[in-house]
């Protein structure tokens, strides 16, 4: 076991745990943001540099600080390590820079992007980014490539996290897509068009942190915050398919099926394409109940930002109205109950 101090909080974790996972054991909300690291995918991480943290003391044996910021998702803890995440101004400054770098070539088409509302980059930029840009140049674009009948590739939105490459590598036999080219011209590609065709290819949609890979059967149907996630399962005949999914309802209709995400937004159980794309009737599934949604998520709030009521207005309201509002969650009463 190794005892580390993370942002002033002491925690004991097994040897070999990464800083990221130690922080997640503490509380997923305190952990550094992860744009490329994905726990179930071996070899992922270290690329986006969003999770850089400062190691103020390397270990009990060698308490010198590490010379550079380290990627918390791939750096294992040492006994006596002191890690600074949000408590280090340097880390927050660098993170601001990383957001900027990720966004300079990202199209910012959130209003028409299917991922909006459950997009890691959106969350990351909302939390750490600036509201202005210093980038005056033309954004990088790519030719549209059709990679298959079920999955839509928007290469301009891609942040090259390599998650989909690892997914295809580790889940399916014979990966047919990968990264072509280099530098800011590198792209996810299949080289041969319209070729992705295997039972587990749909999982690349779930692992994609942005809207680069989206479900063609769900395209433009609904904004995610107008749908209701419900957990369900079925007996799937496909080998290795977990059959445990989240159904996204709008009224009585199942608009899409995804893998079940845990509190860190990661899918731990992969599902097959039959479950994902073909079983869109409630009768196909055994419903378990509403899927847990984080309170801060726009999916639960139906709003990007909760409106905060003016103190003066609240003070003038009749007591019954205030009570009524407090019991009705869509509005948050600034200063009253929050």
């Amino acid at each position, binding site marked *: 076991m190794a005892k580390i101090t993370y942002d002033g909080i002491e925690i004991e974790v097994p040897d070999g745990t990464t800083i990221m996972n130690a922080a997640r054991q503490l509380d997923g909300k305190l952990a550094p943001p992860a*744009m490329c690291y994905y726990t179930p995918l071996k070899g992922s*991480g*270290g*690329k*986006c*540099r*969003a999770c*850089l943290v400062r190691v103020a003391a390397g270990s009990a044996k060698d308490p010198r600080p590490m010379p*550079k*910021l380290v*990627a918390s998702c*791939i750096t294992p803890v040492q006994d006596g390590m002191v890690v600074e995440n949000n408590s280090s101004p340097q880390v927050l400054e*660098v993170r601001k*820079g*990383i957001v*900027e*770098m*990720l966004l*300079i*070539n990202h199209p910012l088409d959130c209003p028409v992007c299917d991922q909006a509302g459950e997009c890691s980059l959106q969350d990351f930029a909302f939390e750490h980014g600036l509201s202005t840009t*210093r*980038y005056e*140049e033309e954004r*990088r674009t790519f030719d549209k490539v059709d990679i298959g009948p079920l999955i839509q590739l928007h290469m301009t939105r891609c*942040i*090259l996290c*390599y998650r989909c490459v690892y997914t295809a590598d580790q889940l399916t036999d014979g990966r047919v897509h*990968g*990264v072509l*080219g*280099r*530098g*800011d*011209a*590198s792209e996810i590609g299949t080289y041969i068009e319209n070729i992705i065709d295997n039972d587990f290819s749909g999982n690349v949609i779930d692992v994609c942190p942005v809207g680069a890979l989206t479900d063609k059967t769900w395209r433009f149907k609904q904004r995610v915050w107008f749908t209701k996630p419900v957990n369900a399962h079925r007996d799937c005949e496909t080998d290795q398919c977990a059959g445990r999914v989240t159904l996204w309802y709008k009224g009585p209709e199942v608009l899409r099926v995804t893998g079940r995400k845990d509190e860190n937004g990661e899918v731990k159980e992969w599902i097959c394409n039959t479950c994902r794309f073909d079983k869109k009737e409630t009768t196909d599934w055994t419903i378990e109940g509403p899927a847990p949604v984080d309170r801060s998520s726009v999916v639960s709030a139906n709003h990007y930002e909760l409106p905060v009521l003016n103190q003066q207005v609240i003070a003038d309201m009749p007591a019954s109205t205030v009570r009524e509002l407090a019991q009705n969650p869509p509005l948050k009463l600034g200063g009253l109950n929050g």
Partner: protein
Amino acid sequence: MGRKLLTEHINVEGIDTMAVYRQHGGYRSVEKALKTMTPDEVVEEVKKSGLRGRGGAGFPTGMKWSFLAKPEGVPRYLVCNADESEPGTFKDRQLMSKLPHLLIEGMITSSYALGANTSYIYIRGELLYVLRILEKAVAEAYAAGFLGKNILGSGYDLDLHIHPGAGAYICGEETALLESLEGKRGNPRNKPPFPAVSGLYARPTVVNNVESIAAVPVIVNEGGEEYAKIGIGKSTGTKLISACGHVKNPGIYEIEMGVPVEEFIYSDEYCGGIWKGRELKAVVAGGSSVPILPKSLILKTAAGEPRLMTYESLSDGGFVTGTMLGSGGFIAMDETTCIVKNTWNFSRFYHHESCGQCSPCREGTGWLEKVLHRLEHGHGQMHDIDLIVNVAKQIEGNTICPLGEAAAWPVTAAVRHFRDEFEWHVTHPHEATRPGAVYHGGLVLA
């Protein structure tokens, strides 16, 4: 004239053949090492020699060798990094094409010291003709019994393979090189683990530059202490410097460490001064990625000491007033050189060569290139100058491999030392974009 340890016989007719190379004392180190020395003794000699990595970072080779993990029953590898592609550096190409057997001799002796039974030379893809020369030399070495099973009856086996890259600068980074050698996309790996623990095929691996390995036979033949007598302080031995740019005699020079920079540029023995009777303006002393220095700072340190061609003297003053010896790609620029254009050119190279794996480098190198392009072409604004410095800072230190730093350093150094020239490009866009226009203290030389 200093001693030449590597290139003494470089101009001998037919030195690239086994017979002639043997006549000039070739493969003595293999015989000496395999017959009279244990591997640890060879490592010890290299340690004593104080040899430092010639690829750019200057890490002590002997120390690198002693870090190699040696678990029982697990093969170890020696990989020679011949992916020389730093702009301004062309020393290894010459060494390999003229003296292929020197590298092979070094590979055998070094592999023996490290206990590697399979070794690789990863050569830059563009150097196809050198690959042919090396392949011929390797075949000769096999025929003469210096490679293969039971070399010289010592019971030591070694197979040497030559592998060409496909033309990527990033594959000169050691872990990207190993990935490429394994047949994958040449993306640098996250470190740790370092190659000394888990390198090629996840086995302990040492990656050394061509020049470092070529120095090993000399060290074994003459002894490490003898080698360490050349040079100053921790910079021992000789170094190949590839001088290019606006000097009278560009080319490759083997210098003893410690030659003053002024002598190197102006002496007829070396570069012979600046061409066309012009003035020196700036020097990039160790390949395009090291900080550029103006004439005043390259000839003398900030403290007023003469600057010498050593690792320590060139980096005197840190990055504020110093630079690095790097890989020895010495680029001299005369007074007609436009620093903005030059910086843009370097930046364009790094933009093109970034592997695109980690975000600061992938996006930042492109951003730098575009803003510098604007500045050079008269569309820049004053705040762009601070912008490129800031973007460079955001890249530096936050990337997986040193390419990010290599892209950032030339930009920050150029702005640090030549800010007025950048500002002139903003304030006088019409003059600055005239063909051949050059900033010269407010004057325009056409």
